[in-house]
């Protein structure tokens, strides 16, 4: 596996976590809990942005591994 595809894999699992957490943030009745879910979502978003940028760089460096 290339570095690029590994990073993409991590990015995908982060996306999965994010979507499930979003569901929990919406489902929970407690304001504090939903606030904590939201904070976590923001941080995960930051990490995802970094990884997305990294994927772009890697694809630029190794165009043969572009795409899925």
């Amino acid at each position, binding site marked *: 596996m290339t570095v690029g595809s590994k990073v993409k894999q991590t990015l995908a*699992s982060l996306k999965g*976590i994010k979507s499930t*957490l979003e569901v*929990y943030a919406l*489902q929970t*009745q407690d304001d504090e809990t939903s606030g*904590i879910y939201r904070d976590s979502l923001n941080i995960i978003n930051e*990490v995802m942005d*970094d990884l997305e940028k*990294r994927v772009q760089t890697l694809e630029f460096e190794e165009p043969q591994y572009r795409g899925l």
Partner: protein
Amino acid sequence: MKDWLIILLRSISLFFLTLAVIRIIGKRQPSRMNPFNFANYMVIAVIAALISVNVINLVFGLIALAVWVITPIALDYLAVKSKWVHDLINGKPTILIKDGKVMEENLIQVRYTGEELLRELRSKNAFNLADVEFAIMETTGDISVLMKSAKKPVTPYDLGRKVSPQPEPETVILDGNILNEPLANLGLNQDWLKVQLENMGVSPDNVFIGQVDGSGNLYIDLFDDALQVPIPKVKELIYANLEKCQADLIAFALDTKDPQMKEIYVNDANKIGKVKGKLEPYLLR
């Protein structure tokens, strides 16, 4: 009119009258009543019985019944308004053990022997007198026991652990019927429930009890106990995935040659670690 007819009619009407009266007086459980409440109920019961078998005159009986019903209601009302009246009617709780020492005078006052005190303490799981910090006899005759702080059950607070608030679960399926009101309380609807059941591979009429907890997980008990139902483990899974992502990020940081990128990876791994710590009480407990 014949005697038996009179007794029949009186009994039937008094049956419902007594039922109504007991409902009006209140919801007190027999075990929570103080001795006076108990005597009061007894008097009402006896008067009702005497009227119904025609031992006492109907009018006299009803007057007596009215007094024994209205006075306690009035006193209860006054007791809510005034502490003095409340103490007069209900009495005050008596301290039996204070600072770990038995108050012998108070014990005599409530006519309790040491044996009986120990029995009551045992029933509260205090087998050792040395473990008891404080014990008080409530006005109902119950004994409430406060254990020494070292002997109290451990709570998450004692362990310095944060736990997520767990709202009460709502029962959404009972006997195969979907209950709409509890579902609406959670902000969910029948479609959501049907999707969840479909995911589990279960039809709604096979479900005996279905409960949704505060975080929206569905737990079901089936009529057919041979069927294995998956227990929701989504939260544990998210936590494990977060751990995996953190490990991945650290691996990337080790792999990359670019120092700037390395720093970003380490930073991100730390961020995920922080999220993990934040979510742990909610996902795992």
